[in-house]
């Protein structure tokens, strides 16, 4: 027993290194699923408990919003939110054509990831778009049984195909690693170095084939400053996301197209 006790730390170190190696070269799905089932469920419970006092007020607010949207629907023939009609091209709002599932943000990571309380049981899978009533949140990077992990668009490793809402110039939006003065901002790189972009321009998603990882025309944010990149291969600008990542609550996951 004592010799086992002495050897145990060494064994655990070796086991940790083996886990790291396994994660590098193989898929650690069972462990992640276990984490989602055990810790995700507990996060769900903790989050419900903290939400409970606020829920009464929320129902009232949602009923009012529902009534307002129904009125708008009757008046115009289609729903229109305060944000959406600014960037909508044509007659479709992002919600119209998709099968979606609502979710709560229940856990927050240190590396710009968020847990939501729906998982593969609700049809959520990797690379699905997540947005809220303000704008794009990110994409699902792992789906466990009861919870899923979403990578925020502000994550330095996130990269979203985007276009300017007005000129339809195409580019890529990436998270900014620096937390300092640019905290919460993301960087837009337009492929056309001659593209005209000015503060206040709105940025929307470009969209991907099969709607994954991103569906088209979801509002991302508005340009706050254009960076001076004379001679660079791309034109870059800093964008403030519409979504408020410090106050995430209700989000929407796009499961797929309505037609499927």
């Amino acid at each position, binding site marked *: 027993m004592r010799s086992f006790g*002495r050897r145990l730390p060494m064994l655990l*170190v070796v*086991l940790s290194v083996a886990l790291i190696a396994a994660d*590098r070269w193989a898929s*650690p799905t069972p462990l992640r699923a276990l984490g989602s089932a055990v*810790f995700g469920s507990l996060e769900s419970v903790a989050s419900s408990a903290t939400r409970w006092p606020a829920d009464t007020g929320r129902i009232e607010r949602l009923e009012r919003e529902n009534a307002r949207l129904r009125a708008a629907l009757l008046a115009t023939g289609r729903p229109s939110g305060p944000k959406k009609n600014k960037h909508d091209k044509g007659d479709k709002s992002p919600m119209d054509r998709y099968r979606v599932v609502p979710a709560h943000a229940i856990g927050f990571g240190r590396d710009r990831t968020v847990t939501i309380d729906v998982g593969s049981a609700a049809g959520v899978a990797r690379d699905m778009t997540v947005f809220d009533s303000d704008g794009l949140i990110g994409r699902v990077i792992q789906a466990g049984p009861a919870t899923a992990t979403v990578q925020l668009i502000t994550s330095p490793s996130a990269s979203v195909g985007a276009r300017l809402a007005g000129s339809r110039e195409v580019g890529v939006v990436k998270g900014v690693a*620096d*937390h300092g003065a640019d905290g919460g901002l993301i960087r837009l790189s337009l492929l056309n170095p001659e593209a005209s972009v000015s503060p206040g321009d709105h940025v929307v998603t470009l969209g991907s084939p099969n709607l994954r990882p991103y569906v088209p025309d979801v509002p991302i944010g508005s340009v706050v400053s254009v960076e001076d990149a004379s001679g660079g291969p791309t034109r870059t600008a800093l964008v403030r996301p519409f979504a408020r990542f410090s106050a995430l609550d209700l989000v929407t996951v796009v499961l797929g197209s309505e037609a499927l």
Partner: protein
Amino acid sequence: MRAFLLAAVFVILAPVVQAAVVNALPWSGPDLVLIGVVAFAPLTRHGALLGFAAGLAADIAPPADHTIGRHALVLCLAGWFLARIPPERPTGFGTAGRTGRTGWTAWAGGTGRAGFRTAPRPVITAPSMMAPIMAAPVALGAALLDALLAVLLGDEPKASVLASLPGSLVWTVLGAVAVSAAIALLPRRRRSPFRSRHA
């Protein structure tokens, strides 16, 4: 048994509280799992096991997305190191003959495993005043090693790690010192049952 249950509760709840409460705060908060391991490992002989379990829990608890095993490795090493801090030299427990060799001198002067071999230690040991003193460098070292591994394993870009490191270091080191000092200053009678039974 009670110690085991407490450790299990800590291992399961710490990542949940971290994700659901601490990280939801608008400012960068402390790393509860690291603080807990640094504070509790000196109390037990199985610091490495505690660190490994807590680290693995933090690795797989959503929304963690980094390489599984990274925290397990770092916290296993930190727990192993801290569990080797000898218990406070007890006076009046009638164990003077044995503790003479397991004291701080044996631990510091011995070569590596000497401190382990000299005497069997109870599963729960009284915290020594060494624990809060060692807490700061160990927490600092563990956080730095974790950041280094994050960059080496490609979990996070270097710029992002460097940007968030100072804030999390301050929180975590201060938290580790505060919690382990609080444990070391707990009234003596709360610890005596453990010692008198084993010693």
